[in-house]
């Protein structure tokens, strides 16, 4: 009876819904810009990724795959030649040429553009046109992760001649063209009939701006949304048993860390850091607080990232060993401060850490601040412990290992203040040596040193989650929800 009533009601309101053909999804905030060079947020990139394309893509196995470029080679280690796909046009009909690619990258690396994501491509020195469809990217010294960086959404190719209007009137080469942006409400896209890979089956995509996860869930269940992303573990578990809804989780590029300021007198003794590592029950955090939606971390980078090493846990949960180490180091009655930023996941993890450390006699004082204020505190000399979630967004080990462990990154990203000339040399080798085997060897050693010297404890790799109505099939989402790819997706009627 209830179903019948529901059907009747739905039939009455159907004309309302009928205006929305195609797929509707939600993002949690209004993007600041639909120019991929002027943003660095997932909720912007998930839209720009439908409109624009990068030169190369990353396969699930960490292989570089063709995007707007079909072939590439290194005539010299510092020169990358990319051959562009033939016959690609921007949505306004402008053909994709080497000149356009050159102008796009030059705009991104020009400090005057004010691109927040410029740091992803600072290695690029110049871009040259070899011929109409061949472009040369010069990095001096050689920058081995260059292709991985060129798979990041911020490097998507934009027509620089439209630079001033791309924010609000995006023009790319992607499978969808821009239709309308109702500020704060929704962004609508239409399938690109002339897309080089063939017109997508889903003809319209609407990104509704719905800030609250609970609202998104009600919308998904009532049919207002077809797919939602990044669902908190508790909500995810409750959606798993909902009829008509499919839930998916996958290992992405994310990780969570507890960092030490190793210059702090309380933490300079590696035995104290080892004791803290032994005091943490990673499985408990994962089972209880992440509802099983994470994997325990040993290396700073998850297995999805190129050159991530499979390592055994040297510091299994062992409170007795922790206490013994603390006693040996003469660090009894230790009281430490943990800096974190406002983030529900980190805040609950911090509380668990507090309880776990209390079990071995360490008093933990948690300080939660806004992100920018947190960074200031964690970078100050007075910092002790800090916790952060992180994304290896280029999917290459260099991105995270260099940031966390190279001495030139102190204190900006290397908040642990870890400084070791040998590790610096290994990281530079990994960054500059074009040979993959040599890179793998260098990064293996760096990851082992990270465990030995323990500038940070790697807590877990969170799984990315999404939930969709079971009518949606064929979507491809790798590494992060923002990499949503609908080119092969279909909606069953």
């Amino acid at each position: 009876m209830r179903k019948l009533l529901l059907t009747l009601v739905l039939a009455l309101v159907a004309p309302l819904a009928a205006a929305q053909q195609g797929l509707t999804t939600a993002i949690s905030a209004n993007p600041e810009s639909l120019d991929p060079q002027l943003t660095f947020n997932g909720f912007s990139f998930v839209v720009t990724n439908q409109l624009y394309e990068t030169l190369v893509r990353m396969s699930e196995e960490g292989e570089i795959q063709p995007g707007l470029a079909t072939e590439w080679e290194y005539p010299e280690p510092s020169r990358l030649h990319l051959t562009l796909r033939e016959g690609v046009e921007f949505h306004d009909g402008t053909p994709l040429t080497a000149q356009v690619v050159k102008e796009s990258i030059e705009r991104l690396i020009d400090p005057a553009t004010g691109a927040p994501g410029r740091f992803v491509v600072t290695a690029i020195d110049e871009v040259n046109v070899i011929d109409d469809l061949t472009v040369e990217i010069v990095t001096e010294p050689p920058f081995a992760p260059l292709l991985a960086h060129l798979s990041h959404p911020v490097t998507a190719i934009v027509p620089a001649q439209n630079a001033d209007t791309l924010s609000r009137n995006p023009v790319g080469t992607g499978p969808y063209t821009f239709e309308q942006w109702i500020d704060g409400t929704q962004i609508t896209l239409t399938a690109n009939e002339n897309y080089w890979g063939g017109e997508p089956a889903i003809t319209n995509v609407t990104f509704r701006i719905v800030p609250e996860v609970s609202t998104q869930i009600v919308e998904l269940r009532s049919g207002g949304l077809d797919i939602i992303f990044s669902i908190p573990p508790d909500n995810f578990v409750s959606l798993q048993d909902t009829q008509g809804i499919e839930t998916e989780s996958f290992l992405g590029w994310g990780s969570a860390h507890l960092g030490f300021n190793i210059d702090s007198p309380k933490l300079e003794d590696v035995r104290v850091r080892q004791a803290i590592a032994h005091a943490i029950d990673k499985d408990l955090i994962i089972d209880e607080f992440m509802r099983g939606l994470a994997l325990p971390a040993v290396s700073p980078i998850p297995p999805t990232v190129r050159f991530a090493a499979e390592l055994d846990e040297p510091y299994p949960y062992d409170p007795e060993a922790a206490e013994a180490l603390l006693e040996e180091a003469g660090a009894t009655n230790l009281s430490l401060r943990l800096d974190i930023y406002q983030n529900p996941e980190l805040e609950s993890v911090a509380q668990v850490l507090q309880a776990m450390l209390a079990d071995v006699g360490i008093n933990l004082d948690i300080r939660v601040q806004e992100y920018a204020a947190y960074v200031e505190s964690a970078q100050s000399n007075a910092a002790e412990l800090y916790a952060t979630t992180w994304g290896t967004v280029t999917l290459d080990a260099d991105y995270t290992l260099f940031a966390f462990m190279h001495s030139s990154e102190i204190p900006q990203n290397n908040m642990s203040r870890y400084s070791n000339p040998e590790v610096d040399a290994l990281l530079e080798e990994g960054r500059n040596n074009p040979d993959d085997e040599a890179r793998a060897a260098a990064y293996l050693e760096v990851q082992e040193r990270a465990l030995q010297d323990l500038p940070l404890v790697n807590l877990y790799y969170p799984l990315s989650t999404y939930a969709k109505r079971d009518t949606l099939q064929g979507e491809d989402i790798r590494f992060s929800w923002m990499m949503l790819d609908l080119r092969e997706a279909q909606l069953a009627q």
Partner: protein
Amino acid sequence: MIGYIARRLLGLVPVLFGVTLIVFLMTWVTPGDPVLAIIGEAAQGIGSEQLEELRAAYGLDRPLPVQYADYIGGLLQGDLGTSIRSRQQVIDEIMLRLPATLQLTLAGMGVALLIGLPLGILAAIYRRTFIDYTAIVVALAGVSIPVFWSGLILMIIFSLNLGWLPASGMGTWQHLVMPAVAIGFSSSAFIARITRSSMIETLRQDYVRTAHAKGASATRVHLRHAFRNALLPVVTVVGLQFGGLLGGAVLTETVFAWPGVGRMLVDAIRTRDLPLIQGTVLFIALIFMLINLLVDLSYAALNPKIRYD
């Protein structure tokens, strides 16, 4: 009267100037690097060199007094500036959100008055009876229940179970119903309480007794004699609520994904988008003060004894 209005309008200028100064100073004493707040935590991995480049690109490397003077200079020429993050004109950003805010505020106040006034009047007339207590409980519930809970309950009932209304967003009149009810319900509580106490006060007045003695019907006494005189404090509260909703309906806007000015302001504060914060606060302050002026002027209309010279 015109002289009074002119004086009041002139008085807005120093207040608005003070608002810009306070907002500017508050943004700068907030701990943390504003550039980091602007680009957000997603840009972890950025190097210190690039942070300095961005600081220069955003114009945040200039001395504070210069930044402020530039801003005021622009303001005097009617330029509210450009949002750092979206690079759109601040005035355009506000105008894009204003219709949504006005719609929700007007509808919400409509609901609030529809619930609040009758509730307050009834409670006053039937003081210390079941009706009064019920009204007090309803008012208390309105003030106490947070919208992120009541909003969700409304959504579950009317969208998920009954399928009558869209759960969130903006577009048709159906979209407006739940957020307006959620806002109206909580505002109605204040209106009901102030109406009740003001009515009780007036019902005690001699002229009410006189009206009863003259043989006027109870309805006429209550509505024509008492209620009209009880309206002054009610109008004040309604004016304040109205002004408050223009920028302060953030929770409702967030729960129902309503694209109002309040949500935009909170996003701007979170990302330290100073020109957008300045412009929006200034705009809200201006409207708030204009509403207050209207409220003050309405006193004269409600009570002829009040004159503005």
